């Protein structure tokens, strides 16, 4: 089914940036810029992801360029790793495809005061307890159910709703992107189906590439930033990867349905119907924005409850309160979202733009007012998950991200093998046994899912991180390796 290799133009700008000129196809309003190095460029052309970058360049109100990060791969409408910013005052659009089905899928990282040598003797028990305590996999309901009225408050308020119920701390909130709440959420814009799907799923992990992983800090690259973030070598951390679950998927689905005729109604040319969109200031645009914000708030609450349950397990296994284990949040980032942010637009002027990040992470530099006070001197933590067999990373946002990519960097390793190809590659192999031989304990609901998620299915995360580091978008702070992981 794949349409095969991209055969359009790619011009090298520098060692870490390639351009698709806007002359490539009719309708392109700006160039496409893809942040890869010369090794990744060959892989880049193996599917139609660059064509999707060119298509996004056709969207009304798009500013500067249609962008993509080095973990780029083929998606729906927008590629994964795609970034674009639109100006509503120039008829700029909002596009659900530029956010994705899993609204506010993202990453949370929590530290502990445990040395890896203290955890190792208890690791099997810890992973088993996490696997049995955290709802994961298909058809699983969460341990927290919310009646419709309460759920609507949660959707409107985000993590502060949980703070008021003793399920979050002030520090958790402060160290979450947007403090765990996008203002302007409109829960009434959600369908009954979305509400029904969300009512019993808050605090569940999901499946696919979602995970809760116990990690150890393997290497520190920037001691100053690591100290500010509270990271030390050999420290055990926990990384959580999940999103807005069925509620978010339903919001996206409903929105795509509602936007079926919008492009035609507003006279918008779409080279790909998957780029369904509407002017951000239109009725349809505002409706999606209100629903998307509600779903984003749900996702932050989802990760908050996953963290709360993780803390309970650690407390049980290690026999002391999580506060005594210093299980404090480092940060939480979204990597599928659209945010209304103030950015420079040339001639030293600033405007508020709709920044779409689809498989891309915000990476604000030092002194940005949105950062928590304790991080403002150094910049925003950027959390990059690897696959379950390699490494994850903590980076820090850099000034060049504001200049080049609307304050954005990569989000992960990016797939190179399809699921069917990954399963074929894994045939005859016991992936969990292979990981165990490397000292990594993996528990998963689905053996097939494990086979689809093995390391060879993904690009090399170290390489991806090196590209964004060299491009000046975000700087390496610490590398973390997995000790144990649970997957749905």
């Amino acid at each position: 089914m794949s349409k095969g290799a991209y055969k359009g133009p790619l011009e090298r700008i520098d060692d870490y940036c390639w351009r698709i000129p806007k002359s490539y196809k009719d309708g392109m309003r700006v160039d496409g810029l893809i942040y890869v190095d010369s090794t990744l460029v060959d892989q880049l052309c193996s599917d139609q992801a660059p064509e999707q970058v060119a298509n996004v360049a056709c969207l009304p109100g798009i500013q500067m360029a249609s962008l993509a990060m080095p973990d780029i791969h083929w998606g729906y409408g927008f590629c994964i790793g795609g970034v674009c910013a639109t100006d509503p005052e120039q008829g700029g659009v909002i596009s659900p495809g530029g956010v994705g089905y899993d609204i506010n899928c993202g990453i949370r990282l929590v530290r502990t005061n445990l040395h890896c040598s203290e955890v190792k003797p208890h690791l099997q028990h810890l992973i088993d307890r996490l696997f049995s305590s955290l709802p994961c996999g298909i058809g699983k309901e969460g341990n927290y159910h919310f009646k419709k009225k309460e759920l609507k408050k949660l959707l409107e308020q985000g993590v502060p709703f949980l703070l008021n119920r003793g399920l979050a701390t002030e520090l958790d909130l402060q160290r979450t992107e947007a403090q765990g709440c996008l203002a302007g959420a409109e829960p009434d814009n959600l369908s009954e189906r979305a509400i029904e799907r969300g009512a019993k799923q808050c605090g569940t992990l999901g499946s696919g590439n979602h995970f809760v992983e116990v990690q150890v800090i393997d290497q520190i690259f920037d001691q100053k930033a690591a100290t500010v973030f509270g990271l030390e070598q050999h420290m055990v951390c926990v990384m959580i990867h999940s999103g807005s679950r069925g509620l978010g998927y339903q919001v996206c689905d409903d929105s795509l349905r509602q936007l079926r005729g919008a492009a035609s109604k507003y006279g918008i040319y779409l080279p790909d119907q998957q780029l369904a969109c509407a002017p951000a200031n239109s009725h349809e645009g505002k409706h999606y924005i209100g629903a998307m914000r509600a779903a984003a708030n749900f996702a932050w609450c989802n990760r908050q409850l996953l963290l709360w349950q993780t803390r309970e397990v650690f407390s049980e296994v290690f026999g002391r309160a999580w506060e005594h284990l210093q299980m404090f949040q480092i940060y939480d980032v979204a990597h599928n979202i659209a945010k209304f942010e103030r950015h420079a637009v040339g001639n030293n002027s600033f405007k508020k733009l709709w920044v779409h990040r689809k498989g891309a992470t915000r990476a604000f530099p030092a002194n940005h007012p949105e950062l928590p006070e304790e991080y403002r001197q150094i910049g925003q933590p950027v959390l990059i998950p690897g696959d379950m067999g390699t490494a994850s990373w903590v980076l820090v946002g850099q000034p060049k991200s504001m200049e080049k990519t609307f304050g954005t960097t990569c989000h992960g390793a990016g797939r190179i093998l399809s699921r069917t190809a990954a399963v074929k590659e894994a045939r005859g192999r016991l992936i969990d046994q292979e990981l165990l031989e490397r000292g990594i304990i993996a528990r998963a609901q689905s053996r097939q899912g494990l086979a689809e998620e093995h390391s060879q299915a993904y690009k090399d995360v170290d390489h991806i991180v090196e590209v964004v580091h060299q491009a000046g978008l975000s700087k390496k702070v610490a590398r973390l390796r997995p000790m144990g992981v649970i997957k749905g």
Partner: protein
Amino acid sequence: MYEYFDHTADLGLRITATTFEDLLAEAGFALFSTLVENLSGVKPQREVTVEIVQANPVWLFFDWLTELLFLFESRHLLLCQFQIQFCDSKMTAICRGDSFCPKNNLQKHEIKAITYHELKVEQNEGNWIAEVILDI
């Protein structure tokens, strides 16, 4: 008949049948077979009726799979038998299956959504063929 095809991040499903009713039935079976192993082992003990009014076969196919996914998510139903009839643009499907039980039904994938991405429903030389990409 159904088979999977390659997509970098997700799963492509290709279904073929001789009639449109059979295409929908096979697509339903394929969808639930993507969720769990050994769908054929599920007993048809529960029944639910699905009605969709839609003249366009592509949108009907899409709405059908979306509805089935919602039935799994909301009511935890695993459906394995589908009896489909049309009266003009109105489709009525009597679907049979059983409740999902994690201990008995081994999980394969979580399907986040049915996507519009390269969605195709066509008739070619008497056979119906559909292709859809499932967001996993």
